[in-house]
């Protein structure tokens, strides 16, 4: 059981990173971005690409993030921008198209087979009695914790971070007080995408890479975002961990294949009982 919870924290960290970006885009751009999972895959594969060019791992991560952000901003500029006035559903449909586009571009270049960043085998060892992990997994938890602290500092301490929270509260007022909302939108894509790429790379480290890896994560991502109250990054962090732990713990009782269904059922329960999410109720970011 302890081990399952530990696994849940690992998986939950990855979900949390994805869900934060998803919920930020929802809060500021007001649409459910179905391409977010595939952005995670794109980042993971780009890191693979740079690694294959003999770039050291940390630099490969940075490059993957940079390229993914550029892609996200370009897509916003040439596609989503035109639908901002036509309402959230057209944006949603467009994002489904983008999701397929990204996934199949990955398929086109890297093929459908499972690949790994490295062939090296990392042995599990007992971290504390009853819980064993390998060094990657410890790294995932540490990096996620660090990123969450960074996101927190970014939103709380930086000018643009505060402007993002302000824009999520009230876009019109943000314009009135002189906030450059175009810059806010660019930053939203940047932060959301960067976190997604981290999540994608971690998923690749943990489970290897396959083109549909991000798409298959979409349901848990939405479940986490809804659980945390959509539009609220802190909610998404907690929601991600809850979903991750629930999915892993469920494997103690039912087939592992049903992990995504567990997320789905939690999501439906939340929608039935408390549609505004556990931290919802008001529009506050806690």
């Amino acid at each position, binding site marked *: 059981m302890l081990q399952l919870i530990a696994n849940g924290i690992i998986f939950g960290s990855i979900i949390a990173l994805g869900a934060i970006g998803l919920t930020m885009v929802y809060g500021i751009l007001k*649409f*459910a971005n179905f391409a977010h999972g595939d952005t995670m895959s794109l980042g993971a594969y780009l890191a693979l690409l740079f690694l294959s060019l003999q770039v050291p791992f940390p630099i490969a991560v940075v490059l993957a993030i940079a390229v993914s952000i550029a892609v996200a901003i370009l897509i916003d500029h040439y*596609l989503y921008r*035109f*639908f901002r006035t*036509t309402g*959230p*559903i*057209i944006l*949603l*449909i*467009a994002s*489904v*198209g*983008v999701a*397929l*586009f990204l*996934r*199949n*571009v990955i*398929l*086109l270049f890297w*093929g*459908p087979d499972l690949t790994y960043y490295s062939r090296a085998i990392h042995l599990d060892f007992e971290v504390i009695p009853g819980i064993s992990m390998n060094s990657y997994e410890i790294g995932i938890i540490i990096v996620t914790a660090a990123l969450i602290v960074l996101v927190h500092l970014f939103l709380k301490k930086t000018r643009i971070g505060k402007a993002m929270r302000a824009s999520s509260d009230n876009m019109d007022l943000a314009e009135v007080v002189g906030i450059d909302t175009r810059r806010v939108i660019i930053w939203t894509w940047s932060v959301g995408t960067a976190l997604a790429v981290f999540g994608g790379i971690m998923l690749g480290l943990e489970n290897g890479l396959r083109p549909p890896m991000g798409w298959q994560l*979409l*349901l848990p991502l*939405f479940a986490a975002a*809804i659980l945390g109250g959509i539009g609220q990054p802190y909610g998404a962090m907690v929601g991600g961990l809850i979903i991750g732990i629930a999915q892993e713990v469920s494997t103690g009782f039912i*087939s592992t*294949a*049903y992990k*995504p*269904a567990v*997320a*789905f059922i939690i*999501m*439906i329960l939340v*929608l*039935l009982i408390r*549609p505004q999410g556990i931290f919802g109720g008001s529009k506050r970011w806690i």
Partner: protein
Amino acid sequence: MDLSGLFSYFVFFLVIVSVYGLLSLGLNIQWGYTKLFNIGIAGFFAVGAYTSAILTTPPAMDRVGGFNMPFLPALVIAVLLSGFIAFLIGIPTLKLKEDYLAIATIGIAETIRLFFNNEAWLANGVRGVSGIPRPFQHYITFNYNLFYLLLMVVFVIGVYLAIEKALKSPWGRVLKAIGEDETVTQAMGKNIIRYKMESLVLGSMIMGMAGSLYAHFIQFISPEVFVPMSATFLVWVMLIAGGSGSNKGALLGALVIWGLWSLTDLITNVVPVDYAVKAGAFRVIAIAIFLEVILLVRPQGILGEKSVMKAAKKQEQE
């Protein structure tokens, strides 16, 4: 390919177009009229197909089913079951914003697929169900596919006429009004939850019917068939390209998009096997770009109504 080969390819092609035509018609009730955002088409399609498969196949040792049921009762049960599942999804989601219905429908579709994938006792899991009987096979002495095409045409025309009738009646008028402005429609005394539910259930029943008819034609189904790409996304592209809100547009969209899809498939078949996967990916990329271009350039589709007529503004009456 000789002439008879071409002919049988064409018949096969049209049968699949009819299946998609049904899916597209079902979606048109939900999205085209009521603006219900269902992206779990694959789920209802799968329920229809699997219900028929389990009910009509001969008994089998390693799984449930094999009830040897005739075609028509199985079809009816498949349709009803699809509708029932839509009803269950509608309860928590129809009161909420449209995004939630979207997320819930894709959730149920994936869950259904996982279920059939993993529960081998039910429908053989990943290996799928084969040997689904073809209806009236013993009575047909001529080209069976041609017969099936005729059968499909009967179903498509029947469904088309039925929903055309319903949508052109006051019932359809209410759905259209809900799609435009729920608040006003409620102020006009309409119970909007009831109508949204009816729209969701009826549309999903047609999707279930499409699933059942597909299973009986192909005779083999596996969870692989019900992935979101081919079973949900393509249908959306069909409806949007054809023109949502128009039943003719829904059918035309099915023909055009499946035509393009098959054309790219022919190209895939020509290239060496090594490239087949890549060519497949290329097809999807092409369709995705096609969708975005339609959304940008002609959002109302080929046969769709223009959102607001360009008619000159009428002068204030003096």
